[in-house]
């Protein structure tokens, strides 16, 4: 029997017919990268290929200048196969990877979401025979609220704090979530927005790539007054000495995991806001169905459950063990 078009090697998802990896977790000669988050983009490979808007993000992550940028839909030939990238709606430059060869089409979804996001191109369903999909939030309890409603919640929280002269520190991923939240706030914002250095560095890249973001200023303690400000920081800054300058600040955390009350209470943030850059349950099921795939491989998160659900609906489905992590803050991470 012939080996599948894409299989799991010790280094990650591997296409032998084109001799390249997708989001490998060990150094390889040729790596196609779905997006620049750390669990998908790891350093050490010789050559990287990613969507054009993600090149700077990837270069920053990897410290490599061997990154080639592709337009969505641009055809790349590797050995016997043709590779194209298609919008995944996850973060700026995120892509699904379509691999066509030997009369078959495979798609690796990478991380994706179906909600509108002003900072990146919207997800496009890509017809395929075999789909390798993420399953981070593959349970029917995960259904995201409207982003506009959440943005309003964030705004109200910020304004309530500002009225009491309490700084509002909002924790979210430095890449993607932070920019999406900023872009969803009303323009111009009602008070200054400051950012952690890790966030500001990504903001600058987004702006260079033509994404409209509100004015933000990196926290530098010059003559900055935080009393009425919104401060956007990565979750890793929580509890660090960096936080001391804000005194008794109110803290909020943006994550899909914040949908569950237990998570909101356990994390120790004052507020949890339900925002995820991953597909929720209806998003996952709809994307899988509209791909027309007859075989579905599920990775990270609730991969067993999603595969079982799909099998019961008559699809050929199975979990595949990758080292992708989904959205930090699940299980015990973070």
């Amino acid at each position, binding site marked *: 029997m012939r080996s599948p078009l894409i299989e799991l090697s010790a280094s990650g998802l591997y296409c032998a017919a084109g001799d390249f990896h997708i989001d490998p977790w060990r150094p390889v000669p040729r790596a196609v990268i779905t997006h620049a988050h750390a669990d998908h983009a790891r350093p050490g490979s010789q050559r990287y290929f990613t969507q054009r808007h993600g090149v700077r993000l990837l270069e920053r992550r990897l410290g490599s200048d061997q990154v080639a940028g592709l337009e969505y839909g641009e055809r790349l030939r590797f050995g016997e196969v043709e590779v194209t990238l298609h919008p995944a709606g996850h973060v700026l430059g995120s892509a699904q990877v379509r691999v066509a060869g030997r009369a078959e089409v495979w798609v690796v979804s990478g991380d994706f979401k179906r909600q509108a996001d002003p900072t990146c191109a919207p997800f496009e369903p890509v017809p395929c025979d075999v789909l390798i999909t993420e399953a981070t939030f593959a349970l029917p309890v995960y259904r995201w609220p409207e982003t506009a409603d959440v943005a309003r919640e964030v705004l109200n929280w910020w304004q309530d704090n500002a009225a009491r002269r309490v700084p509002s520190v909002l924790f979210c991923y430095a890449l993607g979530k932070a920019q999406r939240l900023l872009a969803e706030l009303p323009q111009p914002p009602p008070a200054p927005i400051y950012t952690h250095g890790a966030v500001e560095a990504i903001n600058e890249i987004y702006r260079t790539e033509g994404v409209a973001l509100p004015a933000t200023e990196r926290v530098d303690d010059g003559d900055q007054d935080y009393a009425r400000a919104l401060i956007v920081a990565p979750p890793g800054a929580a509890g660090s000495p960096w936080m001391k300058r804000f005194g008794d600040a109110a803290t909020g955390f943006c994550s899909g995991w914040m949908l569950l009350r237990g998570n909101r209470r356990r994390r120790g943030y004052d507020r949890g806001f339900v925002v995820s850059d991953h597909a929720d349950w209806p998003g996952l099921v709809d994307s899988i169905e509209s791909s027309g795939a007859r075989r579905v491989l599920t990775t990270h998160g609730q991969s067993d459950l999603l595969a079982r659900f799909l099998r019961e609906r008559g699809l050929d489905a199975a979990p595949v063990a990758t080292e992708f992590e989904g959205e930090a803050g699940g*299980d*015990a991470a973070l």
Partner: protein
Amino acid sequence: MQRFSALYQSLDETTSTNAKVDAMAAYFRTAPPEDGAWAVYFLSGRRLKRLVGGARLRRLLVETLDHPEWLTLACYAEVGDLAETVALLVDGDADPGAGRLAGNDREAAGQAPGLAALIETELLPLGGLDEAEQGERIQVWWRRLARRERFLFTKLLTGALRVGVSQLLVARALASAFELPRATIAHRLMGDWQPTPGFFAELTGPDDGSVAVSRPYPFFLASPLEKAPDALGPAAGWLAEWKWDGIRAQLIRRRGRTFLWSRGEELITERFPEVVAQAERLPDGTVLDGELVAWHEGVLPFAELQRRLGRKRVGPKLLEAVPVRLIAYDCLEIGGRDVRDSPQVVRRASLEQVAAAADIELSPLLAFDSWTALAATRDQSRALGVEGLMLKRGDAVYEVGRRRGGWWKWKVDPLSIDAVLIYAQAGHGRRASLFTDYTFAVPDDAGELKPIAKAYSGLNDAEIRELDRWIRRNTLERFGPVRAVPAEQVFEISFEGIAESSRHKSGLALRFPRIRRWRRDADAASIDSLADVRRLLTLGGSASPLAD
């Protein structure tokens, strides 16, 4: 319902005590009295009887949804709370997208029932319906309510609604909303009352000094002594007593009637006929504070008392096997007068008088002339079957709730053993997605590991997460929600007491086991054996500190 639900959400979203009090006060100022009464009822920790069992609600949820049963149950396992699972999975007509007025507006417009109306005309009558009709009504309400209200409604159905505020905070909020002394509200909240508009009016009305005949006083709670007692100043200003291993109770004798209240404000008069008989000798207008202990020629272990606690009606056999008496240590009312503001020594003198006349057992004062001498006395605690000492400042007034300063509990150091982790299970609620319920074992003579204790607390958040990751990576077997892990991680387990038990595989039951520390330095070969643990039994014996 929306107003209360909004209040519930604000309380849930903040850890600031002041913010909680402000939110409650704002609610009470504007809530109609019938809703206010129910809000006080729930906020002060009272609960409805369970109207529908958890298993039945799970079935109903499975039937309501189009998902396969296993998927709905997987959702429940992920969320860890049935009411929240219902709230998230069911699509309500009022959920986003359904074109609705905001919560308070709907309630004001009469489109949605208030808290009292929902409970009294919808929820409580469900108990009397047959299963099919009950199920239909519940489904109708699941759909009619928006997500947050659906959560509360389901919590109320299961009788498990808990709000993270204390009765004292509720009293603070009411006091602030109605400009009344906090102590007045705290006292009015005690005991047995029904959540009626009349009660709410009485609760929030002006102070007229009258007291319902059965109403207990708020208990004064001692704080744990964390340092050596020298920090309390000269020993001469203090009284010391044994800290009894029983249950705290308040005995009320007023207008020829007797009421016995537990610290949880449960009326337990009928469960302790022998205490009621004692109380009949007390003059009217007397309220005593003390400890109920199992007593037969001395104090019996707490395990014996437990045999009496679960029973509403006590048969003559059990009454004879486990007699209970009240050991009094304070008096709060004498001759119908509230004496809580008198100094400790004055109350003690009154107590001695009234107890002597009625032949009520007193908690004896321990003689000591220095803290060192008292420490030596404390060392006898374990042998005497008591938990340690109580220190009471001679001029302490009887406070409301836990106030530091007047009363300290100076407990004996807990016992401890080293045991190994063998099973883990996910917690509930706040800990639903983490493995936080642990089972520990020690080897018997044949070297076979026997479960010795379950513990849920004692690790910090970072340790919990680390252990959670280890458990996930090292799972040997799954039995439903339980994971078996290799016997590698050693923990020091502390506990307050130990007793023989035929219900446990190890033959031993530990009291209040918790994790003292994670012994990363130890391996499973070095832990205590079952025989080692059994030897501790002799320490937990119960000679009596009172001559009978």
